[in-house]
């Protein structure tokens, strides 16, 4: 004769950390597929190696103990996929593996594992790669290269601590007249703007870009619809970046790109939809989400326009992460019962 005693509530919503993470992974799969279609086996190898490195690091630090979480919670998988998507497709695989290990180790494990990290682990890994491998991370290759499903981009297979093979000459020997520079770099250093439509779809022109912003938006919309992503953050990031770009554009139309280019180029879409929305490192308060997103969008534009590097999303998000505790503190939700009474009916 026994009865169970529990403290209310006795029912629970059908949701869970693992379910959220798994859905994020699923939503990333179409993006990965498109990325592999763009860059062939090099992209596939990069995704696999970086993700495997993240999982290995997660397992390693879990075995060390004093960590929460496990491989089955899918969070390290997300880190791996996102990190791989932020790297050039021909990024040397060994460097990708190191970046993946650092992403989990420095980005997550030292804080205590899932839920405890201050910064987005994938971006910590990328920041490390940016500092440690500045040439490799800036070396892009054109998409849709002939033979991409059978031939690695030569830099992918570079041996550890060896200088990767020169991909510019390799690309030129395969495809004449296409640039290996990213659209952002071409705008920054050559003053050439790619068309918004080509940037949005990433389908034509052999652009040296990441996955299609349109596809990322679609997958993000799915996640938002299922309730696994807060739409406020991408809306705030993209909105503030567009607003600032639109405000700056008339000041110097020769130098500043129009807002469409700002939104669709570089990693802004991936950052806004998948990285800034990382639940652990973004504010929990709705007003805080707006503020945080707006900060990231504005910082991205400022860094892109005035920094030495063409891209600024990564630093913008990391700064946003750092500001999150402070943002939460000043955006606590308003207390019920403290608003002035406004009568409607009666």
């Amino acid at each position, binding site marked *: *004769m*026994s*009865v*169970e*005693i*529990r*403290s*209310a*509530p*006795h*029912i*629970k*919503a059908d*949701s*869970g*950390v*693992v*379910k*959220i993470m798994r859905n994020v992974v699923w939503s990333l799969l179409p993006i990965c597929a498109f990325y592999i279609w763009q860059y062939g086996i090099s992209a596939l190898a990069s995704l696999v190696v970086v993700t495997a490195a993240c999982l290995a690091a997660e397992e390693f630090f879990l075995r060390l103990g004093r960590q*929460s*979480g496990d491989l089955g*919670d899918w969070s390290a998988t997300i880190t791996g996929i996102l990190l791989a998507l932020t790297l050039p497709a021909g990024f040397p695989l060994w460097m990708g593996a190191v970046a993946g290990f650092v992403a989990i180790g420095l980005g997550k494990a030292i804080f*205590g*594992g*899932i*839920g*405890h990290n201050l910064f987005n682990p994938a971006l910590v890994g990328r920041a490390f790669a940016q500092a440690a491998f500045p040439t490799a991370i800036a070396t892009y290759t054109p998409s849709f290269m002939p033979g991409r499903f059978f031939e690695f981009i030569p830099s992918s297979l570079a041996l550890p601590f060896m200088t990767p093979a020169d991909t510019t000459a390799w690309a030129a020997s395969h495809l004449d007249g296409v640039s290996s520079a990213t659209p952002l770099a071409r705008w920054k250093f050559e003053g050439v703007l790619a068309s918004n439509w080509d940037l949005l779809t990433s389908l034509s022109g052999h652009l040296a870009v990441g996955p299609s912003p349109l596809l990322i938006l679609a997958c993000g919309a799915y996640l938002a619809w299922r309730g696994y992503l*807060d739409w406020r953050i991408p809306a705030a990031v993209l909105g503030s970046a567009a607003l600032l770009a639109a405000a700056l554009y008339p000041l110097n139309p020769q130098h500043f790109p129009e807002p469409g280019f700002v939104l669709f180029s570089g990693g802004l879409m991936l950052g806004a939809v998948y990285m800034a929305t990382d*639940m*652990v*490192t*973004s*504010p*929990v*308060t*709705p007003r805080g*989400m707006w503020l945080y997103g707006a900060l990231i969008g504005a910082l991205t534009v400022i860094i892109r326009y005035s920094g030495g590097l063409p891209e600024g999303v990564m630093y913008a998000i990391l700064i946003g992460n750092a500001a999150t505790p402070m943002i*939460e503190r000043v955006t*606590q*939700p*308003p*207390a*019920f*019962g*403290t*608003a002035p*009474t*406004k*009568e*409607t*009916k*009666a």
Partner: protein
Amino acid sequence: MKLFTFLRGEAFARGIHPPEHKGTAAMPITRVPFAPRLIVPLSQNVGRPAKPIVKVGQEVVRGQPLAQADGFVSVPHHAPVSGVVEAIRLNPTSGGLWTESVIIRALPGSPQSVEWEEPVDLDQVDDAGLIAAVQRTGIVGLGGGVFPTHAKLRVPKEFPVDMLVVNGCECEPYLTSDHRIMVERAKDIMKGIAMSRRLLKNPRAIIGVEDNKPDAVEALRAALPPGGEVTVESVPTKYPQGAGEMLIKTLLNREVPPDARSYSVGAYVQNVATLAYMGALAPRGRGFIERVITVAGNAVTRPGNYLVPMGTPLRFLLDYVGAPEAGVEVIFGGPMMGQAVACLDAPITKGVSGILVFRARDLEAPPSKKSFPCIKCGKCVESCPMGLNPSTLGMLAAKRQYDTMADNYRLGACFECGTCSYVCPANIPLVQQFRVAKQVLRGKPEKAA
């Protein structure tokens, strides 16, 4: 102003929509047989325990007072059955505590048709007399508050009440007893409303009913008194709409300030079942000896809305509805805020609006229900009806920083609706931690001002 009403939404902000499971909504109220022995605890409500006025061995008639009120915030209790007082002794209650109770052995073979009553012409008595008449019925807040109803009717003079809000939301999943009372006993509710309005100096009255109960809205509208002073409003179905502050917000767009009572914004909230019993019992001078209770849950063979004599042993009722007595969780109240029963030897008391019985194995924690650290998804912040930040409160609770919770994050405003725990994907026992925190803070001496 209509446009702004639309912009603001029709209900209070945030909240959740748990699955309703109101399968018993269409089942008419049916009577449960009398148990051979009934147990009437002398303390069933907020306020002082009643004082017994019967002796062991004495025969009592159904409805006869067994114990009288001890002071103003106290109510009498009545014999739920004609029988013999077998003992006055300690008996376990649902929480496991033992309290002094009157045990009555039902007279076998008695039709139990006689009922003690002392009718009063309520039109002839003054307000104090009316309040006394309500006190004599022994009614307490039947929505779960169990505060003596007559005491609640004495609103301090400095707070003029301009709106009587009648709570017919029944927002907890599974529960349908209020629903059936609205459908079957709308006239009694109107009598209770009339009595309350008289004591509150004739404010208007709105009956708020969630829009998942259209038949209740219809039945109430058909029973409305002429004059338009009492109206029925269909409100959106949303948990916790049945919390008084939320219903006031939805119906009147007034927010009860923290640490204040609803009459501070001119509103007085009363539950439909309380009003129905008040309307039915007070004029006839009868005692509150039975109430409608929803019995449901996946371990119950015959769920329904039952008229249960007070003091019926829980085991007797479980047997009657075909529920097992082992390997189950028994809950008094709804699944969101109800209390798990620790002892099946407990009797049914005045505050029980529903009894849910779930098979324990269905409540076993599956692997996906494992607890994670907070991933700061913000779902709790998005859902908390009081606009609190359960995420941060939970992290503070884990560090036992209870004072910070109260001072900086308004722990005191939490009324423990359980929404945060319900939505949390990391399965953090948020509201449970908040209960502990409040309990600890209650035990602390007041800080020097």
